[in-house]
């Protein structure tokens, strides 16, 4: 279980970090989603939330492979053009699946550690989830304004919210690491 936790954490880290050399992503997102899906699959027996997160990771894996093959949809917003409905829909789907992934992870950890009070992992997972859902919700509510509000203003707002989302995801990573360590200790005690 601890290794599954670490796999999920490594997977999220790979998705979070983009290292591009000459347009090539050295830490490709599909690898990250694959690791996360594999970890969540291992934990799926413990909680249905892990199952939901695993399904989201699998769909994100398919989406990221499709993006690698077909290419990113022309992000009009970044080109100074208003985004199309198709671009918005794909973005919405991606964001909803990412939300489900983090939601599944945090709720799964909360339910798995609900009886354990020593390290308060469940409490950390609850705080991480609350923080993530708040900023992700703000991001989701703000993004469609790119259609109608001045692009400079929206670029600034979305940049701030993206930083906030990344910080919340980093907090989830650290929480996963703590959960993995806790599980390892429990396994060693047994």
């Amino acid at each position, binding site marked *: 279980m601890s290794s599954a936790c670490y796999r999920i954490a490594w997977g999220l880290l790979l998705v979070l970090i983009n290292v591009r050399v000459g347009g090539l992503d050295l830490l490709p997102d599909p690898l990250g989603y694959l690791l996360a899906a594999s970890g969540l699959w291992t934990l799926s027996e413990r909680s249905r939330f892990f199952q939901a997160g695993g399904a989201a990771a699998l769909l994100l894996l398919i989406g990221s492979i499709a993006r690698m093959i077909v290419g990113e949809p022309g992000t*009009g917003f970044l080109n100074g*053009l*208003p985004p*199309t*409905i198709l671009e*918005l829909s794909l973005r*919405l789907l991606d964001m909803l699946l990412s939300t489900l992934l983090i939601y599944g992870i945090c709720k799964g950890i909360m339910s798995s550690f609900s009886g354990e009070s020593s390290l308060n992992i469940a409490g950390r997972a609850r705080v991480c989830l609350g923080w993530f*859902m708040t900023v992700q*919700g703000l991001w*989701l*509510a*703000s993004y*469609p*304004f790119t*259609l*109608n509000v*001045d*692009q400079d203003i929206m670029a600034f707002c979305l940049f701030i919210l993206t930083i906030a989302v990344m910080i919340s995801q980093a907090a989830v990573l650290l929480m996963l690491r703590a959960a993995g360590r806790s599980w390892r200790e429990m396994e060693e005690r047994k």
Partner: protein
Amino acid sequence: MRGKWYYFLAMLLIAGSWVGNIWYDQANRLERTVFLEHYIEVIPEAGDYFDLYYLEDKRLERKLIDIYIEGYPGLQVSPYPNYAEYRKQSLGKMIVSFDSADSGQEPPEIKEPAVIRQVTALYSDGSSEKVRIGEIHLVPRDHVNRDHDPIQWTSGAGSSDHSGYDRLAVRRPVNLTGLSSVYMSMVEEGDLLVHADIVKRTPGISHRSEAPSEAEIKLSGVPILDLPLPVRLNQGDSVKVAYKFNLSSPAKRMQVYQLRLRLEYADAEGDQAPWQSVHHFAYYPSPTEREITEYVRERRGAL
């Protein structure tokens, strides 16, 4: 239970933001290229031109790339697709000139007045359609005798507030006998204010910069329609014709106006042919984002 309400409200907010923004976006898009309404007067000879303005969605796949005016194959058309950029639309223009085209094709020789009301629009997907653009009056000049002009243009200016002036020097005695334009009704209705100043100048010092003395002023700020015609102009006199567009309604401010006001002169001694000076007055819209939004909604209703 509290948590569930919180999530429900958050989802409601997100869904409302998406539905509202997509609805507002769709309500402010143009599904096809639209031409503004033009009221243009032009002299169909080398050096003169007119601009046809159109509004197009930035995301539209079928873009206007060229126009063709039936019956006038030699006209030179220069596209200027991004004349002004707005959030969702671009205001572009097609500059149509009577100069010789690069292709070597000669511009048409137009001797009789004519009116163009529609052009053929050519699109990026290979399709074409006839579109109404308002009215373009081709008004050939009656008297072309530039070697012996009694009136010499000396300076002129135009401003972004849709005003401007022409200053003329009188080279030999003439009588200003009349004025004409296809759109004189704009002057009569007050949409275009035109005033004339006539200052007496001593020959040889007519270009000095000081303000004229009262004794030198023959007419000052006289509305062009109130000129006591015929007006005698002596050699060395200076004539200033100033204009300002005064379009009150938002609909008119989104239209394009171009006038060629002709002042007609007769030789004071009566031994020369009559002559005209032509003054270029133009109003090109420069709408704000809000005006564009209102115009798009109005045109969507009409499409």
